[in-house]
């Protein structure tokens, strides 16, 4: 390059247009400045509005309803009527306090994970809904049982077998009991090499969990399982369990006498936990589930006899134990039920039935079959603490908050920002076309 460059550039610049053809540059500049200020203010206002909306939504979604009474840890529990399906974005906790009800639901996690069989607790008194964080919960056995007083929750846990290797898919190693007030967890592990096939979980009394489970003898192609047996776990004695039942059937039966299970189609067996002796009652017909009042020797149950089409009638039946036999008779006027949960008083039982819209809990008069609805909830299954069923009082249900789906919030915010940004860009570009 030579010293000619400045000269050559000047020569070339001589071809430039002699003067500007546009007028009103000052006015255009002022107008464009005002537009920019307005666009900036508009964008800021939009952002403030979106932030305020999001903040308000998030705040409101985490606030208890102003009408909510305080949580209770003792005394009578009233049943919320109705119960509500919770949002999948509720907060989670291991210490929600005393629960009046336990709901099944789906829980969503960011970014895309979801937990199909999550559990939601409804706190007694306050009716706050929370997902329950259950440490060590088995992935494939998602049943759980709420204690009668609503203070503990029993659930299946998994882990390694006695040889230190992983137990098979779907297997469990025992039961954990969560203290719902303190969040403390007691683990009760049944020592097996390959784990247990989970059966049912129930509470005999406020400090005793009963479970049925079958030991897995071998895994793989020739997998083999032992017979279903009954176990009892006692709170406060960590990792202690006793095998109380021999071969049992998975029929949900509660008894005031202790661990109860069906042995064969017609025999209801109730174990005495002190000496492992048992009382057998021979039933006049098979049952799908029921509740035995040991003080009055009364069994209320749902009949399990198949009709001519092969379907069970699911009628409500009741009978008194006399000399080891129970003759069950249908309750007049009673319709179809799924199970009898507990005796409420000498003439009433708490029942659950399935409707097209979900589960309904009732109190049924065993003399007339007349029933009064306690509570209901659509879709997912739920259970109510047995003490609350025994008291059979209801309060108006308070709908839980429905936090916004964060995915929609993030997506919506992005869309709003893109739209606002696009509008601003459009305004600025339009205003910058000066004199064209």
């Amino acid at each position, binding site marked *: *390059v*030579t*010293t*000619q*460059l*400045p000269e*050559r*550039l*000047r*020569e*070339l*610049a*001589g*071809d*430039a*247009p*002699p*003067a*500007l*053809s*546009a007028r009103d*540059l*000052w006015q*255009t*500049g*002022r107008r*464009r*400045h005002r537009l920019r200020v307005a666009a900036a203010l508009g964008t800021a206002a939009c952002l403030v509005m979106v932030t305020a909306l999001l903040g308000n939504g998030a705040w409101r979604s985490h606030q208890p309803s102003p009408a909510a009474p305080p949580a209770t840890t003792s005394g009578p529990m009233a049943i919320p009527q109705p119960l509500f399906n919770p949002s999948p974005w509720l907060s989670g906790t291991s210490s929600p306090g005393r629960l009046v009800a336990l709901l099944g639901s789906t829980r969503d996690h960011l970014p895309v994970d979801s937990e199909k069989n999550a559990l939601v607790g409804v706190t007694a008194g306050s009716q706050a809904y929370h997902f329950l964080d259950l440490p060590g919960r088995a992935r494939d056995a998602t049943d759980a049982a709420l204690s009668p007083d609503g203070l503990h929750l029993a659930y299946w846990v998994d882990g390694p077998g006695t040889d230190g290797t992983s137990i098979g898919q779907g297997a469990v190693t025992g039961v954990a009991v969560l203290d719902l007030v303190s969040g403390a967890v007691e683990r009760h592990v049944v020592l097996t090499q390959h784990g247990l096939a989970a059966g049912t979980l129930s509470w005999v009394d406020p400090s005793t969990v009963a479970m049925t489970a079958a030991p897995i003898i071998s895994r793989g192609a020739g997998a083999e399982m032992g017979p279903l047996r009954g176990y009892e776990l006692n709170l406060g004695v960590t990792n202690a369990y006793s095998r109380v039942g021999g071969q049992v059937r998975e029929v949900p039966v509660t008894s005031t006498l202790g661990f109860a299970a069906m042995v064969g189609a017609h025999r209801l067996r109730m174990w005495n936990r002190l000496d492992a002796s048992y009382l057998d009652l021979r039933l006049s017909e098979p049952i799908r589930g029921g509740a035995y009042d040991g003080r009055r020797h009364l069994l209320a149950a749902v009949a399990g006899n198949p009709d001519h089409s092969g379907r069970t009638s699911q009628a409500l039946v009741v009978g008194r134990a006399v000399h080891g036999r129970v003759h069950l008779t249908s309750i007049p006027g009673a319709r179809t039920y799924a199970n009898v949960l507990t005796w409420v008083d000498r003439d009433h039982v708490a029942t659950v039935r399935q409707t097209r819209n979900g589960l309904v809990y009732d109190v049924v008069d065993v003399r007339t079959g007349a029933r009064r609805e306690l509570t209901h909830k659509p879709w997912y299954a739920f259970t109510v603490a047995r003490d609350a069923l025994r008291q059979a009082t209801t309060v108006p249900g308070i709908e839980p908050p429905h936090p916004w789906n964060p995915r929609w919030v993030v997506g919506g915010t992005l869309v709003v920002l893109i739209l606002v940004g696009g509008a601003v860009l459009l305004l600025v570009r339009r205003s*910058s076309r*000066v*004199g*064209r």
Partner: protein
Amino acid sequence: VSDADDFAEFVAARSGALLRTAYLLTGNHQDAEDLVQTALVKAVPKWGRLREHEPYVRRILVNESVSSWRRGRWRETPVPEVRDEPTPGYDVEQKVVLRRALAQLAPRQRAVIVLRYFDDLTEAQTADALGVAVGTVKSQARDALTRLRTLVPDLDGEPMVSPTGE
């Protein structure tokens, strides 16, 4: 004198010089006019607060030029648009060659060449106008001159002397 009047006086006095700089940066009349108008319009909101107007307008001019080239808004015009009669001793073809050579430089290199060797700015003033470090101006100028030497062979000869003596 109001800001508007002051602005009008500035446009009347300096728009010609700005158009020449813009023409070297863009390579055609339309884009040069657009560039100067855009720079002047953008300078309006701060006009009353500026002590020196021309450096500010020129800074907007060159930066708008660089960003417009990056956005693909301006492209080299393939057909020569030489309106004036060629200066005696200076061939029209040489103008076309130089303009095309400038168009083949990177936008910032072209801005450095125009500011340094047409507007006679120092390296520091050029760096300030472009918002880059002085070292960047030096390297961009060196690379641009190397490229121009290839693209415009008749520019070779004696080593380049900085117009400001730096």
